[in-house]
């Protein structure tokens, strides 16, 4: 009896493990890194390939990367690429899972190529909301619960998705027949690396010249701004974020935000931490380390009026912080400024915002009359 059960269970294990086959991509081709058109981003590479491009997206596991070959519609596809993933540009139709993807289409004036998006109820972007209500763009659900039927029905050329280790979209690609293009922009820890992802959308729309120009302008502005802060001696201290259900998640010391703080001439409280993601820190430790910080960066996504009074009611720890007492909260109202969709392509503007608060006297020349776009000081 027992032997029978063990045999049965091992058969089941065998079958279940067969389901989760992994694809291996051949990675034999040595890339000449000098030809890589990507400068700051670490999770994708672009190489000129014959008369098109070869796009390599790094896999989350860092082991097997995914290669795409992109060619303009008018070009004949080289014969040696038979078994490769080929994308014809400009693409006709795409589903964009993340707002950071459709934001570039919108900036390029190419929103008519976007046929589906996720979570349209989270955006305040008027054009997107209008297109969704007119049925030009279909809302296909949430990233954790995508409406498969609608995705199949859209028959898009391409599905741009954000790969999280816990979400598996492979079945969606198989069923819809669309090419699945992972877009792990959130993994970039350099602000310019995140912005550089605009180049991918640029090529997809056949407008790489435009995005290349935009990106080099962003780089120039970012570098000139950060260079004015390198010499500052008095660095204000800063910490970030409100707790969620009393759990404090703050940006890691090597994260995107930590880098912007550093470039804006500030001392981030957790700058010595090595994480590029977020840190889970208990309230005691936040108090211990950040109680005397000069500034407090906060992202507000609530509809209600955001005031010191309301915050003090929400959590009795808040008034204990120096930044709170001295009214030095730097708040971004995501509903108002489109923070989540646009700010990653404007790291220069984010940087200017923080320099404006941390070292107002350093903003000179064309920045002289600068008014912050995303982060504004909470006055009341």
């Amino acid at each position, binding site marked *: 009896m027992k032997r029978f059960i063990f045999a049965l269970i091992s058969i089941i294990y065998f079958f279940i493990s067969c389901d989760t086959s992994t694809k291996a991509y051949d990675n034999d081709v040595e890339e000449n890194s000098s030809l890589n058109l990507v400068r700051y981003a670490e999770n994708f590479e672009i190489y000129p390939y014959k008369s098109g491009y070869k796009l390599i997206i790094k896999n989350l596991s860092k082991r097997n990367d995914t290669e795409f070959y992109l060619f303009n519609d008018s070009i004949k596809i080289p014969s040696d690429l038979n078994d490769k993933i080929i994308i014809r540009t400009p693409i006709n139709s795409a589903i964009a899972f993340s707002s950071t993807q459709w934001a570039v289409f919108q900036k390029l004036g190419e929103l008519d190529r976007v046929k589906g998006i996720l979570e349209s109820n989270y955006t305040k972007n008027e054009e997107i909301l209008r297109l969704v209500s007119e049925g030009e763009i279909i809302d296909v659900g949430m990233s954790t619960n995508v*409406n498969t039927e609608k995705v199949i029905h859209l028959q898009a050329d391409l599905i741009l998705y954000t790969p999280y280790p816990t979400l598996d979209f492979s*079945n969606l690609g198989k069923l819809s027949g669309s090419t699945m293009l992972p877009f792990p922009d959130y993994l970039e820890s350099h602000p310019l690396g995140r912005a550089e992802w605009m180049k991918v959308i640029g090529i997809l729309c056949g407008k790489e010249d435009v995005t290349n120009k935009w990106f080099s302008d962003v780089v120039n502005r970012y570098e000139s701004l950060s260079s004015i802060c390198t010499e500052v001696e008095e660095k204000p201290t800063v910490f970030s974020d409100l707790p969620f259900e009393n759990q404090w998640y703050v940006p890691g010391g090597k994260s995107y935000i930590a880098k912007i703080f550093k470039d804006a001439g500030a001392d981030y409280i957790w700058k010595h931490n090595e994480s590029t993601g977020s840190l889970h820190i208990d309230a005691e430790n936040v108090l211990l380390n950040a109680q005397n910080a000069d500034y407090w960066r906060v992202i507000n996504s609530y509809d209600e009026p955001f005031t010191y009074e309301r915050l003090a009611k929400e959590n009795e720890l808040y008034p204990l912080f120096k930044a709170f007492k001295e009214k030095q909260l730097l708040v971004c109202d995501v509903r108002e400024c489109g923070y989540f969709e646009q700010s990653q392509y404007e790291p220069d503007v984010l940087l200017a915002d923080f320099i404006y608060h941390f070292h107002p006297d350093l903003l000179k020349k064309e920045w002289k009359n600068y008014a912050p776009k995303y982060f504004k000081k909470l006055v009341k």
Partner: protein
Amino acid sequence: MNHNKLNIILLLSIIILGVILFFLNLFLGSVVIPFKELWNVILYPESNPTISTIVFDYRLPQAVTALLAGAALSVSGLLMQTLFRNPLADPSMLGISSGASLGVAVTILLTGFLGGEALSSFGLWSNIGVSLAAFLGATLVLMLILGFSSRVRNMTTLIIIGLMISYLAGSLTDIMKFFSVKEDIHAFVIWGMGSFSAVGTSKLAFFSIAISMGLFASLFLPKILNILLLGDLYAENLGINIKRSNFLIILISGYLTAIVTAYCGPIAFLGLAIPHLARFIFRTSDHRILIPAVMLIGMLISLLCNLIARVPGFEGNLPINAVTALIGAPVVIWIILRKR
């Protein structure tokens, strides 16, 4: 004779209703497909490849999964209720679903922190797979329970052990949740809400065979179950080896629960409610009738739940667990009141 006739009529009407619901499951969904178009695609799948994909590669496997999972959970629930002589027993009672949840928590949540990164770049998820993790967790608990079942004679003791294992697994899961990032917790919560769509065409064959084996095995149990209803002493006097039959019942029930939970998430309520519904409709406690009855009613209700979960108008699919209890709970209350 008359009673038998009535039973056959009842079973037949359940089958007919089931067939209708099965077709409705193919017909209704968030993409509106006119009936003519559906009929056309059923006859000539090549006529519209997009619609054909939606119907045959998405809705059909989902309907079959719902059918089989409903039958499996209902049988499993009936076995538990008879074994423990407790009307509140259900497949989750022995901690098997909590074991599955723990397995999934380990893959979804723990992979998040190895290496100290909140949302790490480990691809362990894709390599191991949720189903395997859930199945591992569930079998681990099943093995433990089977081990205990051959030691303890008293079924109440076994229930308490099952509940304790459940709490243990639950608290380990909570600890992991506490330290995880939002996206991972969300993915875990969504898994916990249950879904019939995760099986898909590629895994459907295996899922069907595995469930059918368990259901088939349960068809050999009615005699033992009927005798068990009389009490352990009677059963022993009638020559039943109590320990061995308990072992067998727990094995079949746990096996069915483990497979369903591995693929569809912990689906609550069906296992508890369907046996009551079957006893009420067929007015019997004879397992020769009850086992096929719970299978068919389980299929029927599960198809109905899947249909409601996908009613046009909702963005995405409603979680199955929300729907099962939503329509199940009032039914159970109604039955209990009618009985008195």
